[in-house]
């Protein structure tokens, strides 16, 4: 098999794994109403389990990444796929706060850290040549976006056909497909040479690099904005006297255009400075947000907002991970990408929570929109000084 064909299959396997893991995870919200109704729970029980899932996903991501860098992403993805499938099957029989937190929170949270962006993108990066890395990351991230868009109707179909419990078992069977798909990747840790860094040295090198922290803080803003908008936009549009279905359609537009935006960002990242593209992307978000809250909200402005935000949505993923790969190389990319992703999840947690907190205290989302705009400018300023120049260790090493 030629190297080009081998790369194609690796990319295809990575794309399918991301489409499955991100797609299944994306439909969890559909289970809130039927599960809460059956057990007489308030919404906080389900919401707590999902919040726990997000937090554990973020906290365990650097460790899953470090294991992938040391022992190969394939092994981590197999364990992640098994935990994910097990979590879904146990969630199907969850009938208490604890069993739901254990299954949907702990097991699925850990499973996600083994089967999503940091680990999968790290494996792809090790397979493709440096000049094609950004586009390959864009394709993988676009596949995750496509999974999010395409799996929702499938999950809904399963829910209405089988009921929530059997639908979760069916999703568990789908998640289990990640395990054999890993055979496509054949990812192994890069061979150890005398000049290789230890894990601690890699961490110290990244921690001492200003660009690493600037990227991570910029990614925090991305998490804040996407979760604030994803969670609170439908309610905001209802507040603006639009029918409830409009919010759903706007988010569907975000999901659809996100596929194209993510791919395009990856493609551009291979031709232009990725940190400068991130600056442009965060500035563009600020402009779109200012425009959206400055004009009267109509169907046209809401749908246009969905299209524009969709293009800018996860475009940050290939650019941010690509910059980390350029700065520090691909050997420890899954771990370093995992640390950056942890900041994203912290921002996501804050964006979701602060949206509700400030709405309850001020009676509107105005303050959070303004914070989002200010954060966009901050993220643009944070990414501006980042230079896409490999660290000295890589510059000194033979090509």
């Amino acid at each position, binding site marked *: *098999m030629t190297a080009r064909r081998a790369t194609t*299959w690796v990319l*295809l*396997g990575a794309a*399918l794994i991301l*489409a*499955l893991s991100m*797609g299944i995870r*994306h439909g969890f*919200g*559909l289970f809130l*109403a039927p599960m809460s109704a059956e057990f007489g729970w308030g919404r906080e029980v389900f919401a707590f389990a999902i919040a726990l899932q997000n937090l554990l996903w973020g906290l365990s991501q650097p460790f899953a990444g470090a294991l992938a860098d040391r022992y190969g992403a394939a092994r981590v993805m197999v364990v992640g796929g098994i935990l994910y499938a097990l979590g879904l099957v146990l969630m199907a029989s969850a009938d208490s706060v604890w069993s739901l937190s254990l299954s949907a929170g702990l097991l699925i949270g850990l499973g996600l850290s083994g089967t999503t962006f940091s680990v999968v993108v790290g494996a792809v990066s090790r397979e493709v040549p440096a000049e094609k890395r950004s586009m390959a990351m864009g394709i993988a991230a676009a596949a995750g976006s496509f*999974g*999010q*868009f*395409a*799996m*929702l*109707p*499938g*999950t*809904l*179909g*399963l829910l*209405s*056909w089988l009921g929530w419990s059997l639908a979760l078992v069916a999703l568990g069977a789908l998640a289990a*497909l990640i395990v*054999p*798909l890993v*055979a*496509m990747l054949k990812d192994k840790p890069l061979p150890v040479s005398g000049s290789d860094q230890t894990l601690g040295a890699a961490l110290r090198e990244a921690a001492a690099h200003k660009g690493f922290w600037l990227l991570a803080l910029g990614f925090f803003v991305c*998490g804040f904005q*996407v*979760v604030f*908008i*994803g*969670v609170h936009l*439908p309610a905001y549009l209802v507040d603006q006297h639009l029918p*409830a*279905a409009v*919010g*759903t*359609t706007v*988010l*569907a537009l*975000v*999901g659809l255009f*996100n596929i194209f935006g993510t791919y395009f960002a990856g493609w551009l990242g291979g031709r232009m400075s990725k940190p400068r593209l991130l600056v442009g992307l965060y500035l563009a978000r600020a402009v779109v947000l200012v425009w959206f809250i400055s004009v009267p909200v109509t169907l046209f402005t809401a749908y246009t907002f969905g299209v524009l935000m*969709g293009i800018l*949505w*996860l475009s940050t993923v290939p650019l941010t991970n690509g910059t980390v790969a350029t700065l520090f190389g691909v050997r420890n990319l899954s771990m370093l990408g995992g640390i950056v992703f942890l900041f*994203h999840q912290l921002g*996501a947690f804050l964006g979701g929570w602060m949206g509700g907190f400030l709405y309850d205290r001020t009676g509107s989302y105005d303050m959070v929109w303004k914070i989002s705009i200010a954060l966009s400018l901050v993220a643009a300023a944070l990414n501006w000084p980042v230079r896409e120049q490999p660290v000295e260790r890589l510059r000194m090493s033979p090509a």
Partner: protein
Amino acid sequence: MSRSLGVALSIAVAAGLLALAWWGWQRGGLALLQLGMGSCL
């Protein structure tokens, strides 16, 4: 698992995902719009 088996599996999974999405839309596209469809990470 051989590479060819992996390729066959991935094609089957891709086709299955598309079929599931299409079936879901046919079965409950409107219900999906009413339930709410988030797209955040």
